[in-house]
């Protein structure tokens, strides 16, 4: 018997249009004990993220139609997601180009974390630990 319920593992939202990347990250993070929700269509991603209420959003910057930067702007401006850290993943934008891109998009705040693709799972796990704490689960 414990007098406190176990703390649920942090919920990570993965937003990317590359299905394989989403599958990979989802399986890997779940294997490491995180809870994961995913969105692959940018047009519905925002709704899904709000509904899930994640602890952190991993967002691909280059997405079709509704680009990642536009989605990022929506997230940082949304009252429900104001305190939700955002981890930006990109294969095209380099870290040093990010400030300019944020400026051009209307002076958006610097995201909590920026990872260049290809994503190495260890890097991602380290970033998640830094921002939302350990998952508590064990890797298989």
């Amino acid at each position, binding site marked *: 018997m414990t007098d406190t319920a176990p703390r649920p593992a942090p919920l990570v939202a993965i937003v990317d249009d590359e299905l394989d990347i989403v*599958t990979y990250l989802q399986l*890997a993070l779940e294997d490491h004990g995180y809870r994961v929700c995913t969105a692959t269509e940018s047009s519905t991603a925002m709704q899904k993220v709000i509904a899930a209420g994640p602890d952190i959003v991993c967002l691909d910057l*280059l997405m*079709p139609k509704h680009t990642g930067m*536009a989605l990022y702007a929506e997230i940082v401006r949304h009252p429900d997601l104001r305190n939700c850290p955002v981890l930006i993943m990109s294969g*095209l934008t380099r870290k040093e180009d990010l400030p300019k891109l944020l400026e051009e998009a209307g002076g958006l705040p610097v995201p909590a974390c920026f990872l260049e693709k*290809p*994503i190495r799972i260890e890097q991602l796990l380290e970033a998640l630990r830094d921002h939302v704490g350990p998952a508590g689960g064990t890797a298989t």
Partner: protein
Amino acid sequence: MSAVTPLEDIRARIFDEIPSGVVVLDPSLRVVDHNRAFVDLFGEARGRFCHEATKGRTSRCPSCPAVETLEDGRPRVVEQQGKDSSGRDVHYLVQITPVMDADEKPQYVAAITTDLTATRRLQREYKTLFEQVPCFVAVINRDHRVVKGNELFRKTFGEPTGDYCYRLYKRRQAPCRECPVDRTFADGQSHASRQMGMSRDGRPTPYLVFTAPLLADDGNVTHVIEMALDMTAHEDLEQQLSRATVLRQALVESSLDAIVVFDERQKVLLVNRAAEDLVGAARDEMIGRRARKALIPKALYPVLKGQKKQVLLHETAITNRAGERVPVRIAAVALEVGGRFRGTALIAQDLRDLKRLEFEKMEAERMAAVGQTVAGLAHGIKNILTGLEGGMYVTSSGLKRGDESRVRQGWEMLERNMGRISDLARSLLAFSRGEALTCAETAPGDVVNDVVGLYQDGARQQGIELSADADRDVAPAWMDAEAMHSCLANLVSNAVDACLVSGNSDCRVEVRVRENEGVLIFEVVDTGCGMDYEVKQKAFTSFFTTKERGGTGLGLLLTRKIVQQHGGSITLETEQGEGTTFRLEFPRDRLPKPETEEE
């Protein structure tokens, strides 16, 4: 009757021959005798009263010099005004001499008249001239005092009251060192000089001064007449003219454009420095000669011959002395004076630097495109790598767990991403293929109509109206028809997709071609979904696609590559929700050139 002695006869003859009129009056003032000159002036007068004969009066004159001489026996000279035999006014000088009797009393008076009418007229004319001449005229004595001045002088300096000329003209307190009046007094000659005076309001005033002697009977110079012409306006004009000339010369000489002026016989009159540089010859070698034929494009001949007012050639070439073809923009303008053709001005702009810059710009654009392509390529590869890494992770974790379905899932991921690498390699090969265009004389309108014809039915089936607006007057151009066809086909396919995405029921796509000032313009206009800022910024990035299925992200890149190979540029205007216009612009002078270019 007594016979006339020879002496008396001579006397009578001399009396008659005296050129002045001579008349003899008795004490009652009746004419006793007169000579021929008197008759010529006043007519036959013997026996008539003097006042009747010379003045047409019926009574004696109020003051009569003849009566005075009869009374006092003294000779006198007076000026009189009378009327001649035809009633006209005459001026004459009368010298009256008494003729004494034995008692030394005046018995008769003899009057010698000299007609002054002509003299008086001359005097009047001289006076008018003196007064009216449009310069200062002053009569100056040896003390430099002005004793008389003409109307302009009086108007400017007031009535002469004996003031010194140097005070009036120059506001000086002492005579001038170099005084033209003094010179004329000294040598009796006329002199001309330039003098600097000062106007009443203290403004320096340049004068052109002439001095001439006024001589007394003894030949001595009593006065000097001085004429002074105010040269202010003249010198102002002279200065303006010389300033304008210097300015014009400086402008022409320092112009960056070559300027050559020909006379009406096509001989060179003027050459500036830029023209020397362009032609590669000194101006001395050109002036006075006709220009070499290689230097002047044929289209300019009508202007040089005065048959046309002006011709502008936006781009042509001349051959300089060194035999080098120099690209130039050249304008020829006929020079006319009073409607008469007097020559031609050629103004030529050396386009070598511009051409070099244009080439460098195209190279820079090409390099930028290469850079973007490489960046896009890196992005594509990174995504595939992540997919492969994911496949490996899923496979190996499945194997570890003995989870067969996970192994299969991982294997499929590996296969899919291997396939993507093959696709990417194929796309890149397609992109890099056909480096050289296969150009031919191509009618731009035909390309537009072909593309529209090819896609029209398909578009209609999807509820989209696709139409062509090809200006028939657009002349054929040296282009790769097949490449242009794939450019437009790609843009049309994009436009159709944009319409489908927008969900509007009434969507249109139009493909246009026209020409404006030597630039071929193709446009693909749609009323589809349009683009937001970021999509627009990334539109020409390789592997960037907004199509969830089937977009390689290479279409626009390929389109731009073909456009650039034709020396053209591609731009897009877009408004989210309103539609997009892609515009391809090809300046004709930047299009590929046929191998053997016509001169």
